[in-house]
C-alpha cells in the first residue's frame, strides 16, 4: 500500500473508491481468483434460493421427508445423490443446507472482524500499555492451535448453531487483531497522518477517515482467507457432533450421520464433503487472488 503524493487531497470516500477500482483491475487479471469469485457468486445465489425454498416450499421438494422404503439408496435418476439412512434425498439436503454453511461461515468471520479489527486498531494506534495488554491476550488465544479453542468453548457452551459460530469467531479474533495492528502501525507513521494530526484532527477522525480506508485491503484479504478456514472449522465441529445439530442439514453434520453407514452406502459421506471442498476451494482461490491483487510486494 504505497502512499503517493496526492492522497492527502482526497476524502476518505475517494480514497476508498480509488483503492477499490485499482483492486478490481488487478483482481481481474488473476484467472484463478475470478473462477473462485464466480463460483462463490453462483453458490451464494443457490444458497439464497435454497433458503427461500426450504422456508416456502416453492419447488415442492423436501429435504426432511423420511422414506423408510428408500433408505441408503445409491445415486439414481430419482435421487441424483442418493438417499441417507432415513431415506432423505441427499441432493435436497445439500441444497437446503447451503445457506447454513455459507451463512455460519460469514457470520463467524464477520463477528471475528467486528471484534478483532477495533482491537488491532487500538493496539496499533495507541501503542504502549494498551498495545501490550491487547496483544498479550491475543497471544494467549493463539496458544490454542487450530480448532482446539473453538472446541473447548463449545464444550462448555454446548453444541448449537449459534454457539459454534461464536466459538469459531473467538478463535479467529487474534488473526484479525494481529494483521490490523501491523497495518495500523505502518499507516500511522506515514507523513500525511502526522500532517493531519498537526492540523488538529482528533484521533477518532484520523482513525475513521484515514487509517480505516488504508487498512481495508489487509482486512479484506484476511477475511476471504479466513472464510475458508471458518467453513472447515464449523464443518469439523459439526462432524464431531459439537456444532450445528441434526436434523439441520449442515454438511459436516451430514458426514457424521453418514459415517456409520460407510460399508453399505459410501455416497452419503461423499457428496456433502465434496461440497465443502468446492466452497473452501473457491474461498481459497479468491483469497489467494485478493492477496496477490492487494499486496504490491508480491505483484510481478
Amino acid at each position, binding site marked *: 500500500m504505497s502512499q503517493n503524493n496526492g492522497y492527502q487531497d482526497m476524502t476518505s470516500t475517494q480514497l476508498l473508491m480509488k483503492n477499490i477500482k485499482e483492486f478490481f483491475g488487478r483482481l481481474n487479471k488473476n484467472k484463478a481468483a475470478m473462477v473462485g469469485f464466480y463460483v462463490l457468486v453462483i453458490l451464494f445465489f443457490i444458497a439464497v434460493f435454497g433458503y427461500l425454498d426450504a422456508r416456502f416450499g416453492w419447488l415442492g421438494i423436501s429435504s426432511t421427508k423420511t422414506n423408510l422404503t428408500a433408505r441408503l439408496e445409491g445415486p439414481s435418476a430419482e435421487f441424483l445423490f442418493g438417499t441417507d439412512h432415513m431415506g432423505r434425498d441427499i441432493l435436497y439436503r445439500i441444497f437446503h443446507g447451503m445457506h447454513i454453511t455459507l451463512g455460519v461461515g460469514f457470520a463467524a468471520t464477520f463477528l471475528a472482524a467486528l471484534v478483532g479489527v477495533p482491537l488491532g486498531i487500538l493496539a496499533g494506534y495507541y501503542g504502549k500499555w494498551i498495545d501490550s495488554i491487547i496483544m*498479550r*491476550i491475543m*497471544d*494467549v*488465544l493463539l*496458544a*490454542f*492451535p*487450530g*480448532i*482446539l479453542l473453538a*472446541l*473447548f*468453548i463449545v*464444550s*462448555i*457452551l454446548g453444541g448449537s448453531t449459534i454457539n459454534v459460530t461464536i466459538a469459531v469467531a473467538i478463535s479467529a479474533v487474534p488473526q484479525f487483531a494481529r494483521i490490523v495492528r501491523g497495518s495500523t502501525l505502518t499507516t500511522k507513521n506515514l507523513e500525511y497522518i502526522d500532517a493531519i494530526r498537526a492540523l488538529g484532527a482528533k484521533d477518532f477522525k484520523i482513525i475513521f477517515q484515514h487509517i480505516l480506508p488504508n487498512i481495508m485491503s489487509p482486512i479484506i484479504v484476511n477475511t476471504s482467507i479466513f472464510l*475458508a478456514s471458518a467453513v*472447515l472449522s464449523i*464443518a*469439523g465441529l459439526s*462432524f*464431531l*457432533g*459439537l456444532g450445528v445439530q441434526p436434523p439441520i442439514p449442515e454438511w*459436516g453434520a451430514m*458426514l457424521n450421520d*453418514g*459415517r456409520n453407514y*460407510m*460399508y453399505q452406502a*459410501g455416497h452419503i*459421506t*461423499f457428496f456433502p*464433503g465434496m461440497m*465443502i*471442498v468446492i466452497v*473452501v*476451494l473457491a474461498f*481459497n*482461490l479468491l483469497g489467494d487472488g485478493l492477496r496477490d491483487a492487494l499486496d504490491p510486494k508480491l505483484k510481478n
Partner: protein
Amino acid sequence: MIRFITQRLIQLIPVLFGVTILVFGILHLTPGDPALIMAGESAPEATVNAIRRRLGLDNPLHIQYFDFLKNVLTLDFGTSIRDNIPVSDHISARFFITFELAVISTAFSIFAGLLVGIVSAVWKYSFWDVSLMVITLFGLSMPNFWLGLMLIQWFSINLGWFAPTGWGNPNQMVLPVIALGTAGAAIIARMTRSSMLDVIGQDYIRTARAKGVKERSVIFKHALKNALIPVVTVAGLQFGYFLSGSVLTESVFAINGLGRLIIDSIFARDFPVVQGTVLVLAVMFVTVNFLVDITYKFLNKRVDLN
C-alpha cells in the same frame, strides 16, 4: 543467541499464565453454574452438590484459581469424574499415540511437500507444475476428516488394503497419516516452490551457473539450502497444528489418542479431563512455536555468516 533465547523464554511466561487463566476461566466465567454444566441440566441435586464439593467450587474464585495453578505446576490436573482415575494418567496413557501421529504426519508432509515443491520449482510453468499446484490447492481445501472417510472408503472398504481403524501397526498408520498430513504437505509444497523460485532468481545462483556448476548441484546445494529456511518454520508450525488436528483424525479412525480423549470426555461431561488435555496441548503448541522461533533465528544467522 543466548540473549535471544532468554528473551523469548521470558516472553513465554505471561502467555503460559494466560493459558492457565483461560483454561480455568472459561468454565467459571461463562454464565451458569459450573457444577450444573458438568453434571448436566437434568442431574439430581445430590450429584451437582457432590461435584461442587469435590472440585472446591464453593471457594472464592481466586482461591480456586491458585489451587488449580498450584496443582497444574505439579502436573496434577485433578481426577476424572467418569472413572476417578487421575487426569494425568489418562493423558500420559494416550499422549504418545497423538505425539507419534503428529510426528509421522509431519515427516510425511515434509517429504511429500518438498518433493512436489522442488519438482514444481525446477520445471516451473510446465504441465507437471500446473497440475501439482492444482492438486495442492485441493489438498488445502479438503477437510481432513472427509479425506479420512474417503481413504477408508477406497482403501479399506473397497480395496481392503489398509485397516480402517486403530493405531499401532504400520497397516493401521498409513491412512491416518495421509489424512492428517495432506493439507500440511500442500502448504509445504507451495511454500517450497515459491521460496525456491525466489532463490533461483537471485544473483548468486546465476553466478554459480555462470561458473559452470552443474545444474543438479545448483538446485540442491545452492538453491534448496536457502529455500529451506522458511520451509522449516512452516513445518514446525504444522507439527503444532497436527497435535490439534488429530482431534478430527482420531475420531475418524477411532485412534485412542488425546484428541479422542477430549471428545469422549466432552460427551461424558468429564470436564477435568477436557481441561487438562486442552491445557497440555496448548502448552505443547507454545513450546513448539518457541523451538521453531529459535531454529529460524539460528538458521538465519548461519546464512548471514556465510
